[in-house]
């Protein structure tokens, strides 16, 4: 099936089986292997990408559902020469060990920061209040991203750093 998805700013035409998930389209057809397949069931968050600026699990979406969408993967976030502030913060805070979940953690962080900016509530947000960047909010909003190395304290610190440097 013909599908065109703009990935990291570049229109990519695909002719794919409708069963292909967005994650598999990125990894196996477009050879963008930064987004990782952990559980393939939306439980681990390693496949998190931004679609039209919003974070989703790319394993729980079909590529054909994204015809015309703008997708950002970790490959579109920064480069080794010009890291994104969130990437720099993850390095500085040592917010990973094996690194497998890190592309998802970073894409999820970008989504989180936009959601906070837009006032999207979480279960940590007091009734009627605007959410603020507290550790409790960060932990709650990152609960869809599992880190088996358990670098959670450093991930929280990195997100605080990144938010500060981007402000």
């Amino acid at each position: 099936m013909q599908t065109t998805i703009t990935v990291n700013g570049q229109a990519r035409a695909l002719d794919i089986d409708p069963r292909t998930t967005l994650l598999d389209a990125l990894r196996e057809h477009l050879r963008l292997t930064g987004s990782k397949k952990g559980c393939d069931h939306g439980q681990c968050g390693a496949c998190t990408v931004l679609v039209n600026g919003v974070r989703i699990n790319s394993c729980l979406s079909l590529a054909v559902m994204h015809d015309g969408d703008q997708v950002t993967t970790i490959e579109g976030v920064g480069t080794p020469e010009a890291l994104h502030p969130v990437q720099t913060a993850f390095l500085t805070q040592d917010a990973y060990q094996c690194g497998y979940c890190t592309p998802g953690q970073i894409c999820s962080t970008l989504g989180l920061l936009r959601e906070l900016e837009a006032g999207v509530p979480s279960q940590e947000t007091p009734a009627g209040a605007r959410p603020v960047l507290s550790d409790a909010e960060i932990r709650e909003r990152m609960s869809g991203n599992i880190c088996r190395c358990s670098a959670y304290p450093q991930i929280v610190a990195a997100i605080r750093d990144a938010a500060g440097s981007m402000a």
Partner: protein
Amino acid sequence: MRPFTYERATDAQSAVRAAVETPGARFIAGGTNLLDLMKLEIEQPQHLIDVGRLPMAGIESLADGGLRIGGAATNTAVASDPAVRARFPVLSEAIVAGGSPQLRNKASVAGNLMQRTRCAYFYDTAKPCNKRAPGSGCGALEGLNRNAAIFGASHACVATHPSDMAVALAALDARIETLTPSGESRSFTILDLHRLPGETPQIETHLIAGELITAVVLPPPPPGGQVYRKVRDRASYAGGLASVAVAGGQVALGMVAHKPWRAAEAEGALASGASPAEAIARELDGASTLGRNDFKVPLVARLVAAAIGEANGRGA
């Protein structure tokens, strides 16, 4: 995944027509539950009709003080909507208690209502499950039934409905608007959307084949405080063991039945002056347990009494 064909619907009328004309057709919007189940081949649609981009994602205030929420609105959009947060906080609280941000960003309101149970026997294709394979039996009856229903279950099925959002909608007396395959709109209370399992747990709703949920309509909020509380094994991103939505004197329970469970006995007792603890005890007189889920009775008793107290505090 089994092979299927895919089309993106251009309008709701042609979507419902295609749904009845194409064998094995299913609607998809966010797909977060359906695709998960398709990977496990628990769901095996032959054709997907993508209704996710139909112009029915809006949230509009109604003249009577109510709200109409489009069926394709994302869970995040509803939880964040200023009118929802101001006037129907129980709905916003319920939504953010469910899933992860990534899932809520993708999942639709209609899809949330149509999601399937998380019963382990439904997911394990090596085990009997009357819901997945009618006539095969229920493995949960004598098995790992810790999260089984305590209200309205049958010997054929003790599964629970997993939605948080639907519990708040039940407490708020929401109405469901649909488009039938013949092109007519109809509307009914959310309490008439889902069925109890009876002998046919594979039939989960009263929708007719090809019928599409187009919107959820909230009447003006009842007077009094609102609160949603959920108990689960982790603090975040976990299915519930039990939940409660309180909106004034209206109380609905989650994860205790095959559908969002409106606690009519408790409401009646509250209206006649019973304490929250007495009221929920009246409701729980009708509960029945299977062994491993016995704990749900005292859990629900304490949870509901605390939530009603909290709602009363907020409403004061």
